[in-house]
């Protein structure tokens, strides 16, 4: 009973600071929406594809065909650049207004038709995924256009060999018709690649990514759960500084009960926060957390357990409010950054992915993404839950050991 009394006392103190309490719920929602929009959430944009500048210095039919092929891409959409824009194209790519730009040189069409080597200039930052994706699409479109022209040339060659053209005009007419036919065939090629994605959000996904909120919802949940430790940690510090802890130790409550009481309050605070954020994700963002309610519950509980244990440790180690803030925020940044809450671990090297998975944040992300993105079942949550539980036990044990020396 005393444990519960202590826990409710802590909760009362936490809730009394309603601004801090509101922050813990409002901020993750705001950031989920903000970053989710950034990553294409809601999908309501006019054209969510990567913008790619198109500077046509050729002006011929084939360069126009290239433009049409690029426009049919699911990943990029071309923006025709006027001559005046051409000077700014490097700046636009540099500043991210364009994912890339393609410059069609003068004589491009003629060179293709003549079977002479000709290249397109592509301006892209190959250090960015947008640049890499854009380059790949441009390459594919250019190859198909070249293929269409080559098909027409081969046809013309064969005709020349078998029948012969009356004149150059007849040949040109043959080639033009053949190119048109080939391009039409490329619009729906007989041999194609079908990209499919497993998981719950597959129908909303583009070929190169998932719906924006599916990543940011779990990531903000993880990050702001740790941020919330500031308030809880301060209660412990103030209890020591005001000598209330020393007074508590003169009563019939044991150190273990005191530790568990504080811990319970933190667990309840974090769980409440997670419940609200899961509900927000489910109802407002249409992320299907509740397709596996038991799995999500287990993940939430174990997340609350290890984060609260961390908070208990921070509160016991810190000597002042300032220390609590430093540690909570520093841990929030480090654990979130290394655990893949900011940038998915997929973009990092193998070493970093391994290091990242030494941290409970990465497992929390894995657990939630298994449910909401990959569409997996309860069994997919078991390993993440197990790892987080181990962290909870370890951190709590460390906190208890520390508590023996305090007061």
């Amino acid at each position, binding site marked *: 009973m005393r444990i519960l009394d202590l826990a409710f006392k802590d909760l009362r103190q936490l809730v009394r600071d309603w601004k801090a309490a509101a922050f813990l719920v409002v901020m993750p929602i705001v950031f989920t929406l903000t970053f989710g929009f950034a990553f294409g959430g809601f999908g309501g944009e006019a054209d969510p594809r990567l913008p790619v500048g198109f500077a046509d210095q050729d002006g011929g039919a084939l360069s126009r065909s290239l433009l049409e092929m690029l426009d049919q891409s699911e990943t990029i959409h071309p923006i025709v650049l006027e001559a005046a824009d051409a000077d700014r194209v490097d700046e636009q790519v540099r500043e*991210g207004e364009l994912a890339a730009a393609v410059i069609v040189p003068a004589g491009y069409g003629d060179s293709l038709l003549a079977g002479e080597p000709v290249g397109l200039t592509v301006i892209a930052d190959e250090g960015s995924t947008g640049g890499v994706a854009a380059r790949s699409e441009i390459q594919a479109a250019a190859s198909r256009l070249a293929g269409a022209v080559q098909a027409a040339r081969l046809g013309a060659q064969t005709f020349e060999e078998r029948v012969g053209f009356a004149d150059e005009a007849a040949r040109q007419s043959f080639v033009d018709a053949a190119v048109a036919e080939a391009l039409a065939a490329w619009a729906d090629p007989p*041999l194609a690649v079908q990209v499919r994605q497993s998981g719950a959000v597959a129908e909303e996904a583009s070929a190169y990514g998932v719906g924006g909120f599916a990543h940011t919802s779990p990531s903000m949940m993880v990050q702001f759960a740790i941020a919330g430790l500031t308030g809880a940690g301060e209660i412990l510090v103030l209890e020591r500084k005001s000598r209330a802890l020393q007074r508590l130790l003169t009563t019939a409550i044991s150190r273990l009960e005191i530790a568990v009481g504080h811990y319970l309050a933190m667990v309840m605070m974090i769980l409440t926060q997670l419940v609200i954020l899961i509900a927000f994700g489910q109802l407002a963002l249409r992320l299907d957390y509740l397709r596996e309610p038991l799995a999500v519950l287990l993940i939430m509980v174990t997340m609350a357990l290890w984060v609260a244990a961390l908070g208990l440790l921070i509160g016991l180690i810190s000597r002042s409010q300032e220390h609590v803030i*430093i540690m909570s925020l520093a841990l929030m940044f480090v654990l979130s950054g290394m655990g893949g809450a900011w940038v998915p671990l997929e973009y990092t090297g193998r070493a970093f992915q391994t290091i990242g998975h030494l941290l409970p944040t990465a497992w929390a992300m894995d657990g939630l993404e298994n449910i909401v993105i990959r569409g997996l079942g309860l069994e997919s949550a078991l390993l993440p839950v197990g790892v987080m539980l181990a962290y909870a036990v370890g951190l709590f044990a460390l906190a208890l050991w520390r508590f023996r020396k305090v007061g």
Partner: protein
Amino acid sequence: MKVLDIAWKDLIRSFRSLFFLFFGLAVPLLMSGLFYLAFGGISSDDEGFDLSVTEVQVVNLDEEGFGGQLLVGILQDESLADLLHVTAVDDAASARAAVDRQEAGVAVIIPSDFTAAVTDPQGQAAVEVYCDPTLTLGPGIVAGIVRQVVDGFAGSQIAVGVASERLGAAGVTVDATTEMGIAMRYAAWASGQHGENSLQVRAPASAPETSAAVRIIGPIMAAMMVMYVFYTAAASCLSLLEEQEKGTLPRLFTTPITRAEVLGGQFISAFVLLVFQIAVLLGVSAAVFGIQWGAPLPVALVTLGMIVCAIGLGILITALLKNTRQTGVIYGGVLTVAGMLGMIRVFTGNVAGASGHVFDVVSLFVPHGWAVRGWLALQQGAGVSEVLPTVAVMLTVGVAFFTFGVVRMTRRLA
């Protein structure tokens, strides 16, 4: 002189403070170092991302056909060993299940009629690429390679089809031998494509020549620096509240010193502290990560703008807070949120599908966003005239915050 005494006293206290040493210097460098480590797989010859290996399971249901074998052979080629680890499996269901279980990132399923479709002018087939939805780059690479091969075959088929159609329209019959000839000539042309009609890719001009690693770490370091400079400024200004609570500020007011001298000393101390912090962060990041921050004069201007802005915000926050109990909300809340908004572009700018322009605008609603903008421009080689508007905004906002904050503080301390 007393202004300087107060400033000196505050500086000593700041340098002895765990907060400044850890938060002001160690954490931003640590965070950037972590990201440097994270993206450390980037190749030194600057070809862009060098990812960890993607696990691929390939199911060749077209076992007897050359089409399937060619595709499998290309995927398993030694030259792709750094990117793909390809395992051949027998059935499609288990390959997809492996992706579902995250044992593989991609499954490539070649249909049994693939070669038949390749050799039949009317044939149709589709190669399935089944991916883990949380992965982007690996599946993109695999899909790109598969598409290139498939397009090669499709191009050959289209060439045959178009030639047959056109010749047929002219009354010329195209027999199988002729079709074969066309197909082979197309294939010969296609295999030589890579060298002759390739793209010439270059990075945007005017940016300083930097490695891909620096192009990623540079903006991150700029964002971290901005975030922690604003934290430091706030901490320095909030020490006034702490002094009020501990009684040293009222005591100071029993000595022959004016409020202006106290606030002036506070400002000088914060200014010097931030200059020191920025100098250390710029110096260490340039030396360790190789980040090029730009020419001295524009760097000095952006530094000045950011410092004035940060101190102004710090004084404003101090004037609005009632006591030090609220500092948790300030650091954990206001400053963290503003910092994250200010650097949003840094983390979303590189991802396909990002609404870059909108978030450029959103980030400018907070002072951090202007500071990040200034530093990113410097990294792109911006000169004085290019950073001047950003610096002007920061100075204006900073002075406005400072004025409001000082007026309120003076009334409070009166």
